[in-house]
């Protein structure tokens, strides 16, 4: 009974630590190179694709759960995973797999952004 709670807590701790570490690596990259946010996102997404292409990112996902899927590298993982699964069905699958796996995220981003843009106005920064 008690150990079950420990398990849950441990899972959270793992998600926190791994997610935090990925962000910290990104911060170190920013500190040393002055890369802008768009480039950081592309680099980390590509890292996710490459790592999953080599079959490595899956281990991190199994270990840390949301800690590995929530950072943008998890998006890359999703794309690569979709393409790999699609490839098992043939050329057409390999071609459509990546984007269909990412469809939920892209659709959500488009739809919610549209709604927010309809409701809110860009405000000036205070500081």
């Amino acid at each position, binding site marked *: 009974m008690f150990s079950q709670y420990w398990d849950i807590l441990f899972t959270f701790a793992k998600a926190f630590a791994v997610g935090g570490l990925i962000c910290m690596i990104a911060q170190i990259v920013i500190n040393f190179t002055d890369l802008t946010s768009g480039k950081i996102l592309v680099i980390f997404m590509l890292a996710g694709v490459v790592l999953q292409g080599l079959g490595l990112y899956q281990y991190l996902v199994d270990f840390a759960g949301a800690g590995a899927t929530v950072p943008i590298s998890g998006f890359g993982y999703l794309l690569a995973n*979709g393409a790999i699964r699609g490839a098992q069905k043939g050329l057409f699958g390999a071609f459509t797999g990546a984007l269909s796996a990412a469809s939920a995220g892209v659709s959500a981003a488009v739809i919610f952004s549209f709604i927010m843009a309809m409701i809110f106005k860009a405000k000036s920064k205070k500081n």
Partner: protein
Amino acid sequence: MTGKNRENYNANYIAYVNSFDPPTHHLKNCLRAFLVGGFVCTIGQFLRYILEAAGLYGDELAGTVSVILIFLGCLLTGLGVYDRIGRNAGAGSIVPITGFANSVCSPAMEFKTEGLVYGMAAKMFIVAGPIIVYGVLAGTIVGIIYLFL
């Protein structure tokens, strides 16, 4: 100074300017990124638990977690909070999927004034577009490599 020996002067001047670079607070920045990034991922993990209990599994579970986080990212952007978090958290708010949502939502809000078609819709992906372009490219390459393996 403007003419022929520009090249020569440049190297000296740029080195001189770089000597003024304000110190970067590595430790502080990294700690903030770690804490905020970790916190967002913990929320993701929390959502996973709840949705798992609600009976979701596999791709649907992962997808729903992303969708909810993207919604939160867009909402905070709309409320004008995300840019303030981002200023302090650095990569901690850029790298999680909420940062992706922010980089789609913020141009949409910004360019709404230039019209709904060529303003908001066309420029929605000026920051996040490269992620999709290179994501699809790289993903498809991986797929094709696996096809021949």
